[in-house]
């Protein structure tokens, strides 16, 4: 019997397990999913927790609910991948052989990478909203906070869902307005980028929104450390910004097992062919989702689109045919902009987010780079779609490769 191991049962790994189990004969292929945690988190929902819009139950479900019958599941960490021998070693020493390995270990926040971040102010006046723990702790803090300097900072690139901290800024503006203390809260958006976003048109649209909402943007700020005594963040070029509340996106990195196995770059991401999704170094290893180093957003939508491409390529690989499906880096992100509105960007390796409309049979059209109520519903609906359609690897009425339909280059 031949074996496929899917390492990581998050968004991407779960989609792949569903697609592959349906396509491959059970008496020919054994499929195993290995994950170190039993709970599946709907990470995009973390953003809404600090403001009391979602609570814990809205964003967690057991992983087992989404893994199809006929797939073996092991809940354990992995000590090491020996890709030269096509095997991996579990923490209890068990050796598992594979014919094909799919790495889907995602990206994690690493607050330990910034000096001073996890010292005495951590979870007292400094919070992250990229973990369930951080989002819930921040919720409690905000219930009692009376205002001051709110600093929203991104420690380093790349990080998951590049628009999430902007959405956080917009939602914070709405939240403080609604509870009547917006005048007492000074919101600053401090980023290592040269603007709100790097792609020019999206930056323009998002910067205008920040100005409109009285959120100050401080660009080109590359965080060196946090000074707990002075309550400031300090950049490598010596600038210091005081905070009363710091909400931060810590450095994001791939899992340590990638580093332990000598398979990653300096942020533990696995070098991957950006079109075929095959590992650059090992022919029978494929990489999907945030774990790879492909130059597109680390986002659930990317995991979903690239799953279709990887699935086609794996079928070709298994049958000894050339891998012809090519991923284009397609990403599609709803941006929550506060007060019941939202925006939408759709882009790939070569095309920056453009204005226009995004056709979606039956539901859309959504306005691209526009601030509308329909886009907000798109974001809210996405949670339902995520649990019921996306994770199960079902067909969605949206193409994996980006289309120019509805987009406008000259607008």
């Amino acid at each position, binding site marked *: 019997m031949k074996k496929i191991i899917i390492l990581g049962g998050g968004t991407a790994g779960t989609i792949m397990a569903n697609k592959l189990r349906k396509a491959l004969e059970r008496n020919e292929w054994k499929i195993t999913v290995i994950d170190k945690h039993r709970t599946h988190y709907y990470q995009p929902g973390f953003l809404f927790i600090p403001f009391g819009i979602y609570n814990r139950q809205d964003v967690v479900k057991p992983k087992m609910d989404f893994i199809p019958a006929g797939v073996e599941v092991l809940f354990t960490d992995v000590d090491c991948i020996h890709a030269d021998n096509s095997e991996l070693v579990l923490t209890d020493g068990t050796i598992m052989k594979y014919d094909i390995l799919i790495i889907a270990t995602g990206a994690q926040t690493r607050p330990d990478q910034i000096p001073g971040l996890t010292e005495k102010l951590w979870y007292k006046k400094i919070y992250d909203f990229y973990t369930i723990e951080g989002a819930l702790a921040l919720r409690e803090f905000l219930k009692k906070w009376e205002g001051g300097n709110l600093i929203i900072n991104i420690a*380093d*690139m*790349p990080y998951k869902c*590049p628009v999430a901290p902007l959405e956080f800024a917009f939602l914070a503006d709405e939240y403080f307005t609604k509870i009547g203390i917006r005048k007492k809260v000074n919101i600053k958006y401090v980023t*290592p*980028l*040269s603007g709100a*976003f*790097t*792609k020019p048109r999206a930056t323009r649209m998002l910067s205008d929104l920040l100005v409109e909402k009285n959120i100050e943007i401080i660009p*080109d700020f*590359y965080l*060196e450390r946090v000074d707990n005594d002075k309550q400031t963040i300090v950049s*490598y*070029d010596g600038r210091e910004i005081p905070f009363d509340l710091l909400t931060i996106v810590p*450095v994001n990195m791939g899992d340590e097992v990638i580093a332990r196995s000598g398979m990653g*770059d*300096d*942020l533990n991401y696995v*070098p991957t062919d950006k079109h075929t999704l095959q590992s650059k170094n090992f022919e029978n290893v494929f990489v999907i989702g945030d774990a790879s*180093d492909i*130059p*597109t*957003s680390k986002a659930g939508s990317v995991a979903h689109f690239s799953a279709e491409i990887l699935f086609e390529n794996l079928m070709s690989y298994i049958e000894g045919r050339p891998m012809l499906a090519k991923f284009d*880096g397609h990403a599609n992100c709803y941006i929550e902009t506060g007060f019941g509105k939202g925006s939408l960007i759709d882009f790939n390796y070569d095309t920056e987010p453009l204005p226009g409309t995004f056709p979606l049979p039956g539901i859309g059209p959504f306005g691209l780079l526009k601030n509308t109520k329909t886009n907000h519903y798109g974001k809210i609906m996405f949670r339902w779609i995520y649990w019921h359609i996306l994770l199960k690897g079902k067909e969605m009425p949206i193409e994996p490769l980006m289309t120019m339909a509805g987009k406008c280059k000259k607008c």
Partner: protein
Amino acid sequence: MASKTYAGKTVEVTDEGYFVNSSDWTVEMAHEIAKEEGLSLTDKHVAVLNFIRDKHAKGEVLTIRAIGKSGIVDIKGFYELFPGSPLKLASKIAGIPKPSSCV
């Protein structure tokens, strides 16, 4: 697109001054580009430029953190060598495309 002459050779550059073909680059040219940016290159600068050209040639995504781990400079040192936006400045002088770190 525009063109520029460095060290007696005319090369194609983008509107922002980044090389279109990174293979056009030589160290002599780097010294002249640096001068335009108000910098005078030391051996340390050149070592960093070679490091990032090498990373670029391998198709790796450049980050400030990676340069901090290069063993040539730490991140603070990188800022001192190429003040302001070090990754952009160094990429320009190294004759490689403008970094697009946000994806």
